[in-house]
């Protein structure tokens, strides 16, 4: 059983008057509580795949099955209902939220929109969500712009899990964080995955991070899958040219200086 099955997904854009495929015939699947990483250089199609899966943009060809339903065929109320099960966390939570909104407001929205908790029950749910992501419930009254970047990303994760999703798309979700905070956020994501059986589509340019948290990895090059396999095996022994280039480009702490 899979949570997400993507088949022959293609998205074309025009560049300089000529069509090119940002995503070209890509197929993959993600199981429950599995982390599938997408790696690749800029322009390889990682974020386009994320946006297609989230239906922020529509593909030119291909099929997306989410929780055994034809996700591309859904619309209206059925799509909204299904979207509760498919959440997202982006790189910059300050850009994702209204900066003047309070933390409580940001967490209240999904609970209200998806009719998860009544008005009287919601403050308690918000407090529980904050605690679940390691934040003090007292943070609820603070504005998004007042809290630190790490706290903001925890709020983004709290909002993502508010609707009990089966899949969260994490698009460079830890890339802008300081390394000390990054470690804590990755631990939180792994903990949530274990407890709630959430699957992650984990997009990152950093093979070190991917190797640390992902079960499998797809290496993309110019919109196509260059290779795919166990995350550690691929990083240890990449087969594709782009996989080899990505591994070679990783800065290493213990290197022999030339």
């Amino acid at each position, binding site marked *: 059983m899979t949570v997400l099955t993507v088949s022959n997904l293609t998205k074309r854009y025009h560049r300089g008057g000529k069509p090119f495929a940002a995503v070209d015939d890509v197929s993959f699947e993600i199981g429950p509580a599995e982390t599938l990483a997408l790696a690749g250089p800029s322009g390889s199609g990682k974020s386009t795949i994320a946006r297609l899966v989230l239906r922020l943009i529509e593909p030119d060809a291909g099929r997306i099955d989410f929780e055994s339903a034809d996700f591309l065929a859904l619309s209206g109320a059925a799509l909204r209902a299904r979207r509760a099960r498919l959440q997202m966390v982006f790189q910059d939570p300050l850009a994702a939220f209204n900066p003047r909104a309070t933390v409580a407001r940001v967490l209240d929205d999904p609970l209200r929109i998806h009719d998860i908790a009544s008005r009287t029950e919601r403050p308690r749910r918000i407090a529980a969500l904050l605690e679940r992501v390691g934040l003090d419930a007292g943070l609820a009254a603070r504005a998004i712009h007042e809290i630190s970047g790490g706290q903001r990303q925890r709020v983004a994760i709290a909002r993502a899990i508010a609707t009990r999703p089966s899949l969260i798309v994490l698009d460079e979700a830890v890339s802008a964080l300081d390394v*000390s905070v990054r470690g804590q956020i990755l631990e939180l994501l792994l903990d949530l995955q274990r407890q709630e059986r959430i699957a992650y589509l984990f997009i990152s340019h950093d093979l070190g991070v991917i190797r640390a948290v992902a079960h499998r990895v797809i290496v993309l090059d110019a919109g196509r899958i260059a290779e795919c396999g166990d995350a550690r095996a691929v990083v240890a022994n990449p087969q594709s040219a782009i996989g080899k280039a990505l591994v070679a480009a990783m800065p290493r702490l213990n290197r022999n*200086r030339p």
Partner: protein
Amino acid sequence: MTALLSIRDLSVRYRRDGVAAVKGISLDVGGGERLAVIGESGSGKSTLALAIAGLLPGGAKIGGRVDWFLPESAGAKASLSVLPDISPSRGEIGSSVAGLLFATSKIGEGRDHELISPLEGEMSGRTEGGATERRPSEIGIAQTPHLGRDIGFVFQDPSASLDPVMPVGKQIAEVAHTHLGLDWPQSLARATTLLERVHLPDPQAILRAYPHQLSGGQKQRVAIAAAIAAGPKLLIADEATSALDTIVQAEIVTLISRLVAEDGMTLLFISHDIALAAALADRIGVLRHGELVELGETRQIIEEPRHPYTRSLVDAHLGLDAKPLLDRQGASA
């Protein structure tokens, strides 16, 4: 190794009542060395770089001193004119003198008050005539560093540091024209050579290209070409590869490394990435909350960090040989 610059007890505050962004930093940068300064967000690493380059905004309160030891020949064309800013995004004309105290053998002679006062007053990085007028005339020009001529600065975002409506060749040539006194044909010829040196394909075409026609990596190569156009003694790279993907980052690091070696430049490499710093630097300084908590040879910092914070940075690095978090937690799909 003779010092190129010597920083003593440098402190910077952006607001009168604000916390010091940088406090009590003392540091010597040797001529020809590659020094990396690493730290997390808010550690003061960019403030330190901007202070050295004289690019701090007006209103910043600066304490301490930065002494330069530039060779006399560096002052060949010590233009007192306004310098072209290599970073229009900052919206200001950089004067490398503003806000810094340059001690030389000629300081003294009852000018102490004049020299110290800038540290207390409002130093404006954007006074056009003011900065040059304020420069104490008795200070030897050779010891007065100019951004662009003596200091090359490469910022994180090349889209913001290049003028979007000027061909990139002209932006590079302008630096050579201003600081080396070359005429325009000579300056453009130098720009072409520089585009070759930063390994851009078809320099003749790139010369006439606008920034939006180039990729992020290509733009950063152009910014590097502009930064080194006047043959600076010091190249400051402030998170210069952070916005680039891993492969392009590695190429740019290799390029910087090669240019620094070929031209005998001193490198100040500002980064949040300890592994990147280790790959490039002879020494690494670690900043935390505005303080220099540790400074040492790269090998010592990485293998035998003395400060607990340095150790935590080394430990937090997720390298390709680190134990996966998945294993540490014992979780599996």
